[in-house]
């Protein structure tokens, strides 16, 4: 069945009440029955929940075949924990038919790719999929289609019981002996633990893995002991060099700076740019540089930012410290400046993924967002964005909070160069729709700005401010005139991944890629 973004969704996926994407806010007002976990009572006072090994903790938590594990990606490419846990389950307990439900998976998790190839890991649910896992899933080696959800769609699915977590694993930079966890104070600090919060509340069992045991009580705790079954101390939970980079530097690339300046110009031309406005930006070159130019406009108009959310890094913390933003609330920290600031700098707070972006709760932060600045791998003439699949059709990206912030914000700006190498970023049809075009308002490229025709109000704002803009079709034509029009990708029938819209409907599917062959004319 065709959905609202024109993607054909195979019927076999549309069972058990699953629907195709119908457009923005389709589920508004409907009721959600929350699925409560089945948890063990610890009535008798316990001195400690420390367990010698991960395998022992898994045994205590009743780990068995068909188990679903949840992991969170605050340790990013430095994460050791997901591998350790899956390895212990497979090698020491002989567990089969494992589903890995992670907030993101990347090159740190090649071990899991091996288990997919061996048929031991049979399900993957994630908000990001990169590295060898992306390759093996695209090659059709995972038994069931991977399910890709946004950062807000994931807690929604957990709360709705669409994914039931048997064991949630929290990689904690510090924990006490009963499992109060924090993202700071240890040797592998990551700052916010926002993505782990919903998991810990909805999992049947929770295991905390830490490399820095601290005195009880470890307060204020991000994940609380009341939800934790076992605590395991290991030598190291991750490689600090890959967890948080040194301070994120603002790009000096003139192309990035030009685009960033235009993003700021667009923002300043809208009525939402006023005292107390709210803002989120990514950490990519031009997105991050937008901070710099935005600050100039704030100074010029003598206004302050009310609050900022997101994954956060140094430049935003800097604005907070200068008093130019009222509050910073984040689910994740990207560099040491942010890691060292959260819960330390006044008005720098932590939030859960649900609080950040869940479309089914009663007040996610994204719904109050004025502006979000996002990147894209591809954007098509319907303003649909792809941040998941490469130009070769292979899974190598992450919807993350992209669809959530785009849908929630009043003005969603995509910033991307028109071409990358030989690939047109602005194209006829994106490979995979990860953020639907009805949520995207403005596109800023190095060759010009385009406004979604669904937003005549913003077109008027740009015109009034004298900001030149063109149609997205003309940008697409320009891109093709520079780098050529690529042949269509060749797919097999097999669906290797299902892309859920944040509301749980199906936005798109990714099929197995057919190896490319050059045909003779």
């Amino acid at each position: 069945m065709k959905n609202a973004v024109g993607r054909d969704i195979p019927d076999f996926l549309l069972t058990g009440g699953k629907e195709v994407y119908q457009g923005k806010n389709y589920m508004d007002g409907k009721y959600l029955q929350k699925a409560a976990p089945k948890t063990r009572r610890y009535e008798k006072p316990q001195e400690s929940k420390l367990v010698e090994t991960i395998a022992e903790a898994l045994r205590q938590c009743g780990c068995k075949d068909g188990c679903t594990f949840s992991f969170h990606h605050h340790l990013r490419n430095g994460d050791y924990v997901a591998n350790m846990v899956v390895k212990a389950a497979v090698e020491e307990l002989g567990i089969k038919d494992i589903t890995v439900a992670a907030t993101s998976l990347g090159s740190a998790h090649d071990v899991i790719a091996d288990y997919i190839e061996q048929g031991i890991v049979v399900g993957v649910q994630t908000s990001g999929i990169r590295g060898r896992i992306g390759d093996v899933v695209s090659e059709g080696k995972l038994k069931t289609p991977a399910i890709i959800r946004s950062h807000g769609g994931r807690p929604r699915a957990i709360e709705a019981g669409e994914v039931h977590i048997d064991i949630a694993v929290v990689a904690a930079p510090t924990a006490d002996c009963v499992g109060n966890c924090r993202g700071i104070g240890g040797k592998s600090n990551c700052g916010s633990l926002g993505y782990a919060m919903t998991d810990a509340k909805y999992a049947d069992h929770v295991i905390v893995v830490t490399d820095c045991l601290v005195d009880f009580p470890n307060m204020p705790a991000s994940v609380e002991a009341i939800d934790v079954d076992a605590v395991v101390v290991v030598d190291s939970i991750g490689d600090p060099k890959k967890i948080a980079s040194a301070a994120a530097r603002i790009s000096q690339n003139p192309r990035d700076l030009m685009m960033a300046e235009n993003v700021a110009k667009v923002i300043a031309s809208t009525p939402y740019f006023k005292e107390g406005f709210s803002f989120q930006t990514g950490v990519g070159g031009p997105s991050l540089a937008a901070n710099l130019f935005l600050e100039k406009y704030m100074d010029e108009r003598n206004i302050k930012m009310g609050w900022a959310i997101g994954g956060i890094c140094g430049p935003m913390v800097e604005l907070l410290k200068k008093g130019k933003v009222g509050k910073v609330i984040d689910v994740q920290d990207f560099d040491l400046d942010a890691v060292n600031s959260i819960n330390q700098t006044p008005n720098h707070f932590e939030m859960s993924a649900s609080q950040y972006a869940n479309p089914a709760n009663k007040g996610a932060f994204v719904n109050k967002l004025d502006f979000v600045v996002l990147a894209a791998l591809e954007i098509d003439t319907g303003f649909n964005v792809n941040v998941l699949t490469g130009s070769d059709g292979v899974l190598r990206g992450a919807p993350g909070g992209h669809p959530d912030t785009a849908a929630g914000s009043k003005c969603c700006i995509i910033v991307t160069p028109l071409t990358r190498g030989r690939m047109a970023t602005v194209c006829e049809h994106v490979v995979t729709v990860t953020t639907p075009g009805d949520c995207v308002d403005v596109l800023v490229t190095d060759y010009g700005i385009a406004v979604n025709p669904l937003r005549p109000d913003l077109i008027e704002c740009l015109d009034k401010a004298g900001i030149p803009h063109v149609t997205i079709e003309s940008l697409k034509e320009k891109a093709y005139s520079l780098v050529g029009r690529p042949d269509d990708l060749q797919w097999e029938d097999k669906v290797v991944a299902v892309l859920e819209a944040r509301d749980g409907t199906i936005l798109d599917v990714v099929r197995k890629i057919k190896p490319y062959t050059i045909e003779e004319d």
Partner: protein
Amino acid sequence: MIPRPKPERFRLRRTMMFMNAQKPGLIKDAYIYGVDSIMLDLEDAVAENQKDAARFSLYHALKTIDYGDTEVIVRINGLDTPHWEEDIRVCVAGGADGIRIAKCESAQDVKTVEAHVLAAEREFGVEEGRTLLMAALESPKGILNAYEICAASDRMFGVAISGGDFRKCMQTKFSPDGVDMMVARGQMLIAARAAGVQCFDTVFTNLDDEEGYRAEVMQNKAMGFDGKSLINPKQIRLVHELFAPTQKEIIQAEKIVRAYREQSAAGVGVFTVDGKMIDIAFIPGAERTLKLARACGLYEGDLV
């Protein structure tokens, strides 16, 4: 093939950005930054044994990239090198808008280049006189001969000073207040104005020194330069911002031109605007302000 319109000898040239003609990644879309002129360099940026490769890159860029309204000028190698004749042929064959003569020291240098340009135009069937010229003054002799250089050819649209080489010759170095080149800049400006051509200042090389750059651009404007040579796209915005007339200047110029036209139609030669005496001597300046404002996108009226 991209046909380029016939170059205009006098047009807005606030910014001229240098880029190595050998770097396709740089020159493929240098126009996106909104610079008035790009300066594709065959001279110092290109290594001695890469001159040929750079010419090929340049020729294909000129022939296949649509630079739109952005002027495309090529800096050729000096007349004391074995490269300049072939450089001229490739510029003309590719259809560059203009050629910048490096290390120009005399009217004869301009005439020598002009003769070769004409020959190349005939060779490649390019409209005679199409290719414009400008001269870079890089030595004391060049500065002393500035007027004859500026006036040496009808193709000449302007003259620029090249700070690096000039300072070396003068045994001085960059000074934040500009005193190191004050006399040279002044003499070149006087010569350019006397000959009726444009005048451009040298590059500012320290990209991290924002204050120093601002100060230099403001001094350039105060001295009467038409524009400045740049080495990085991020330098463009400030020049365009500072060289643009202010809102106040535009309103004042509009009032003067309008009042002059009304008064002179009524037979009055001297009158006052906002309490200030105005006569015909003020009109060219006011009209120039409005023309510049229009070129900068700040004036949409019909007085110029």
